[in-house]
């Protein structure tokens, strides 16, 4: 497989870019934030995204999806990174749809995929502490009649307050499995928490809440879902990095000080050149990792950690440098560049920061 996009993938990417620039530029995020929107996303826009086919990209054709694959979804996510568009695409299509694809029975796939394609919001609930640790799951599943009930508390549940269903990790007989839960089932309490990036997160607790089905594959499904999520996030982070860098380079050319453009200062040139190199590295590992999802590669864990480390380190570098190079103007809320550093930090923490993944990379290589 060549490390370049196919023509179809390229076309999808361009269509996504045009759609997002028109419908959901950063001004759109600002408006959601400043109007203190209760949903925290725009349901109409989300339905348009579904109509564009984005919720169907990774769902196999036999279930009504497009079977386009994860490179496609990754390219769309990259474009949402450029415009910092918030939508349930990560929680619903990247995480929950993947979990169901990997672990759902035939019947459940038919049932859930129909909803997912339509844009019904699903949220993925796994973290129980402020630091991502996939092995730390205290939420318990118990048999109850023909199904299960869940008890436990989850945190950092993206889109948790607007989801119709949750995919939840819980322990049953000492192993971690994934369960699907109706958001209006008994025993659920949720608290919306607005994060630095103006996106939605929730604390969600379950008290003997009926879990309507159990996905097969157990821990493998769980870990692979997380890895897919990490790679998709890395792709979104790459998009945000590219946009922040592009704006910064433009600013270097435009902003004048001491009678010259600040881009003529060698110290800034060298820093920009180093960022350029680092971003090229992120492009390579993100595309490779996306391809490896589609290839059903066995070492996805390694590719996912590599992508998340590199994307996380580089977005931190680039957004910090962006503010520094914009100077005082970059510190003001009026200027859009500040939105990038906020999303950078939130994305970096989601599903494990670069410290977590660098450690995991070493472990996976036996040292």
């Amino acid at each position, binding site marked *: 497989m060549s490390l370049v996009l196919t023509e179809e993938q390229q076309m999808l990417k361009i269509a996504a870019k045009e759609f997002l620039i028109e419908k959901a530029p950063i001004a759109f995020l600002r408006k959601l934030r400043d109007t203190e929107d209760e949903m925290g996303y725009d349901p109409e826009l989300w339905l348009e995204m579904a109509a564009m086919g984005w919720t169907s990209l990774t769902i196999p054709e036999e279930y009504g999806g497009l079977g386009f694959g994860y490179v496609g979804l990754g390219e769309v996510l990259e474009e949402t990174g450029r415009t910092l568009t918030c939508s349930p695409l990560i929680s619903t299509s990247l995480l929950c749809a993947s979990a169901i694809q990997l672990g759902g029975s035939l019947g459940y796939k038919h049932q859930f995929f129909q909803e997912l394609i339509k844009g019904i919001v699903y949220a993925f609930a796994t973290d129980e502490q402020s630091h991502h640790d996939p092995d730390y799951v205290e939420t318990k599943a118990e048999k109850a009649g023909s199904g299960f009930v869940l008890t436990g508390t989850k945190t950092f549940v993206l889109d948790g307050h607007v989801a119709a269903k949750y995919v939840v990790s819980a322990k049953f007989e000492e192993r971690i499995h994934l369960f699907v839960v109706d958001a209006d089932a008994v025993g659920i309490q949720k608290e919306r928490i607005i994060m*630095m990036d103006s996106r939605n997160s929730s604390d969600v607790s379950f008290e003997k809440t009926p879990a309507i089905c159990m996905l097969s594959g157990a821990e493998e499904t769980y870990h692979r879902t997380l890895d897919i999520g990490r790679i998709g996030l890395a792709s979104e982070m790459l998009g945000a990095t590219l946009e922040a860098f592009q704006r910064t380079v433009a600013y270097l050319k435009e902003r004048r000080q001491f*009678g010259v453009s600040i881009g003529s200062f060698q110290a800034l040139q060298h820093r920009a050149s180093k960022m350029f190199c680092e971003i090229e590295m992120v492009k390579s590992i993100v595309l490779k990792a996306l391809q490896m999802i589609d290839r059903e590669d066995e070492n996805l864990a390694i590719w996912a950690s590599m992508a998340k480390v590199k994307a996380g380190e580089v977005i931190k570098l680039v957004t910090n440098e962006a503010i*520094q190079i914009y100077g005082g103007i970059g510190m003001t809320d*009026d200027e859009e560049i500040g939105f990038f550093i906020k999303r950078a930090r939130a994305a970096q923490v989601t599903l494990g920061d670069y410290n977590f993944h660098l450690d995991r990379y070493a472990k996976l290589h036996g040292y």
Partner: protein
Amino acid sequence: MDQDLNLFREEASAWLEKYCPKSMRVPILDQKEFYWGGRKSTFDSKDQQIWFERMLEKRWIAPHWPVKYGGGGLSLKENRVIEEEMERLGCRKPLLSFGITMLGPALLEFATEPQRIKYLNEIVAGKIRWCQGYSEPNAGSDLAGLQTKAEENGDYYLVNGTKVWTSYGDKADWIFALVRTNFEVKKQEGISFLLIDMNTPGVSTRPIKLISGISPFTETFFDNVQVPKDQLVGDLNAGWTIAKYLLTHERQMIGSMANNRRKLSDIAKEQLCLKNGILMNPILRTEVARNEMDTEIFNLTVTRAVDEARAGHHSGAVSSMFKYYGTELNIQRQELNMALRGSRGLEWESEASSQGFEARTFLRSKGNSIEGGTHEIQLNIIAKQILKL
């Protein structure tokens, strides 16, 4: 001499113990507990007023300024003793004032006698709150490129232009500003230092919102503002000298402000797991150790510079080192604080996070390497003035 100082220390300590109200000896929890003085301010509490008035009467608001200007006429060493004892006893500052920390030193050095008498006494008495008008929208790092102009017109200057990054511009009564009085010469040689009453017609401000949320900064606009000529400090077109003098002061303040905070390793111990007494996240442990060690060493370096200055070695450009290095350590610290807190650190509008205190502090810290002269400017100064490159 040192014996005299010890005696002075005992007396100062005894006085502070006796006259500083108990409520003025607990840490500040809210910005409004600071007293800044000025026309628009009131006291936040009876104790705050008592404390300010006692210190004013004792002439310890600006202990080392001459008595005729409202000071206590004490030596720098005695002044330091009072500061040390107040810190030791946890006494709050009776008055926070850019008049004392920034404008005062410039007036003492460059103003006429009538100007000193008038303005310094007002500052000490907390009557006038000052703000600083230096930066402009199109002259960030290139401060000397400022374009706000003051034209001579009879017995006043006519001022037009815009300043940005005025701290508490909306709360201050007067502003000390750099203005261009000559467009024909080298940019540094056409700048003057003006004092402007913000009640003068044509002065207005607009708040600046930062990425961290609201901020103390404003933009300040001058639209045909008439400023009497006796409000010029120093010679016409000699304002750049005053500005440089004050910038050096400011840099030292910003660079060394990073004290009195929780130890990063204590936060780490609280946020991460320990195993056999060792933090389980080895990467963060290393970074925390490096930041703590560097901070300790930085503080030693501040001490060494003070000791060297006493011994007669002093370099103005070293203030650029302190500004650069001190702010960089704080920026790294804030990065680490965020990493240590994980997803909880991202909270922005929850009660548990005190409305995103950590996240906002983190974002605010990004400005440290920009305000008061960017990192790049400080590194330029070190290269040119110390290394002679």
